């Protein structure tokens, strides 16, 4: 089975976000595999171990993204592809990403593509579904379980806390939600083996794309931090009085009732 994983390098969840001159400060920041993409890598490895085949991990980014690809290889993926846009692209958006991936998959046979539900940085959740549409593949988002039998996939997906069961067929693109699995961390032998696994580097002209083809369709006007959290209010007194005060505050101050 040809199994592909779409992977994004994101800020470490522990990282504090600071904005400087309208840009997010990335000096000295630590990076990780987008946590939702980690579920995808784990699931891809499990599917391969059960059904055979190969896991290929793909990312778009600069040279530094090689580290996250090596981590995925150390976890057990078979090969990795870095589409290096450092020299060609100043900016990109979800359109750009999907366009590049569409070209990448043009001459590749994918039985299943796994991606994260969202990336924790921009959290658009668009790349998976849009790519599936372009590739004319079935698409199931926010999956929490998947079993494959021949060409049929039985999937459970998270719908706002409820479970929806879906039966669909391969080829298929899924996006992975928390609860799907618990990603392994690379073993030391895995880390040493990862050094020797193939990591292919492509640029957009290797995919017959020009810069104009992937020009973003959106413009970022402004980046700002969410307002600082205000101090809370602790109500005091008898329970009945507290309830009354709460209702009145919800009406007059918060204006939600």
């Amino acid at each position, binding site marked *: 089975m040809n199994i592909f994983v779409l992977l994004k390098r994101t800020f470490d969840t522990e990282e504090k976000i600071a904005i400087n001159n309208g840009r997010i400060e990335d000096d*000295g920041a630590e990076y990780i595999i987008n946590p939702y993409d980690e579920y995808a890598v784990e699931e891809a490895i499990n599917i391969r171990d059960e059904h055979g085949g190969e896991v290929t991990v793909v990312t778009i980014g600069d040279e530094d993204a090689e*580290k996250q690809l*090596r*981590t995925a290889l*150390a976890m057990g993926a078979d090969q990795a592809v870095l589409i290096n846009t450092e020299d060609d692209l100043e900016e990109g958006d979800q359109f750009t990403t999907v366009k590049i991936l569409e070209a990448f998959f043009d001459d590749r046979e994918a039985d299943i593509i796994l991606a994260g539900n969202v990336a924790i940085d921009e959290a658009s959740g668009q790349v998976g579904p849009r790519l599936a549409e372009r590739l004319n593949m079935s698409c199931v988002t926010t999956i929490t379980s998947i079993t494959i039998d021949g060409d049929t996939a039985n999937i459970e997906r998270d719908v706002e806390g409820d479970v929806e069961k879906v039966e669909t067929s391969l080829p298929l693109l899924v996006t992975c939600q928390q609860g799907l699995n618990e990603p392994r*961390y*690379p*073993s*030391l*032998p*895995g*880390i*040493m083996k990862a*050094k020797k696994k193939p990591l292919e580097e492509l640029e957009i002209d290797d995919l017959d794309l020009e810069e104009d083809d992937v020009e973003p369709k959106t413009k970022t006007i402004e980046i700002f931090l969410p307002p600082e959290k205000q101090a809370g209010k602790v109500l005091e007194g008898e329970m009945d009085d507290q309830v009354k005060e709460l209702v009145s505050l919800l009406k007059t101050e918060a204006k939600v009732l």
Partner: protein
Amino acid sequence: MSSVKHFVQGGDFLIEEITAESVFTPEDCTDEHRMIAGTARQFISREIHPYMKRLEEGDFPFVAEKMKKAGELGLLGHSVPEKYGGLGLDKMSKGIVGEALGNASGYSVAHSNHTCIATLPITYFGTKQQKEKYLPKLASGEYLGAYCLTEPEAGSDALAAQTTAVLNESETHYILNGTKIYITNASFADTFIVYAKVDSRHFTAFIVEKDFPGLSIGPEESKMGIKGSSTCSVSMEDCEVPIENVIGEIGKGHLIALNVLNLGRFNLGFATLGAAKYSFQLALEHSTERKQFKKSISEFGATKEKVAQMAARLYATESLLYRTAGHVESALGEHEDSSDFKAVAKAMNEHALESAICKIVGSETLDYVVDEALQLHGGAGFIKEYPVEMAYRDSRINRIFEGTNEINRLLIPGAFFKKVAKDFLDTRTIVERAQHSLHNGVFKKQTGELSELKQALALFKDLHLVCAGLAFFKYGTSVKNEQETLMKLADLAIAIYSTESVILRTEKASERNHKQKLAYTYVEQTALEVQHAVIPMLSELLVGEERTKTLGQVSLLLAAYHWPDSVERKRKIADFYSEQKRYQS
């Protein structure tokens, strides 16, 4: 993995100038090194930290089970050669794993004990058959190991062991009799490295399996800390050990015992660094949360000074440990699968002095940091609910085991005097040169970046040579009995090694701004410690007017290594860490 290009002899730093390119620094770590650290850290945070209570309750089957899990991840086999089922990684990786696993109380001790002293005697001194039989199982965790050296009457004086080994009549087995005490991992170990004297004379190492007839394990000791590590006595009553289980040669057990301890000490330095960073983090978390007088206590100058000094010491400890990893790798990297017993022993002993420093500085930095961390918790630090309470108790053993810090200190000038004799160095010329430098300010002729710090280092080196020389001229070869002087010479050597490691690392780093602040802060602190060691020594070694004059001059020279921006600099360092909430440089 990355090979270390430069070979620096043990003890060279006390006599020569060492260059930045010949030392390994944390910044030189490869991506693989970082990934290995990440895996080890994740193992601890997922598999051990949620269960600290079970460690504290002494749940040893739990500890054994987790070690087997660590084995599956390759965390027990990093130093075992590939052909025997391990990974054969470099000594930096060994240190990195040791550090990352160091913050887990008794688990850390159990794990390190297994991978270091319980496995290394076989790795470096075992026969091919022994390696094939035991190493794959020790690397995977199928076997867990213990190391039996200490006896009731043989602690620091390890070679005074009374356990005996006698060849049986059919010459198939040695019959061992004796008792070993304070044996880590005893309750669940499958293999025991046991030292015994053949015919009551020839100190020899044996591999004893738990099922060999005559071996029995005593009750658990009730300990002050590291309660998750099993500690029992191990008794042998007519214990039958097949002759093929002798490690190395009969009568050469001391070479194994002492040389393996060198790597044990090196590793313990890393483990204590990991624990110290964890305590530092606890201090930062608490001091930024806790409010008194309507401010976080991290905003007070007294706290800031503590935080800055802790950070500077962590930086120095880290610098000297990674540097030592590079030195040890350069000496030992090739010897992993050698059968040349003597060459292996020599290579392992090359950096005995530096390894002793790793152990001393690591354990004392941890004690210092965990003590200040607890102090910053106030009354809460005395309550068991807060993890710093456990960390404080766990810390104390580190200054005692793997050779007390006193024994390790004595080893340092001992190794230095041996080196001087071995290299046929002309002591008088060296000392005179150092004296000349002190009188005429030659040590000040340092240029370029960090030149002020390099001056301080050159001054420390001159002072060490003068003191060592004066001691040697006064006491001759019986200087080895002058322990009061030897301890202070050791302190000087430690100050030099740590200061030099800090300077070379800072010089080599590309991001230097913050590191430089730590370096200045460390040198200021160390200048005081050098004074603390040198003044009583010179006071003892000199007489009359020369004594009075020299004491005054030395104090004056050392006072130059304090800078006017000290308070401001330390505040900046502290603010950086209160923001980061963890150690980084």
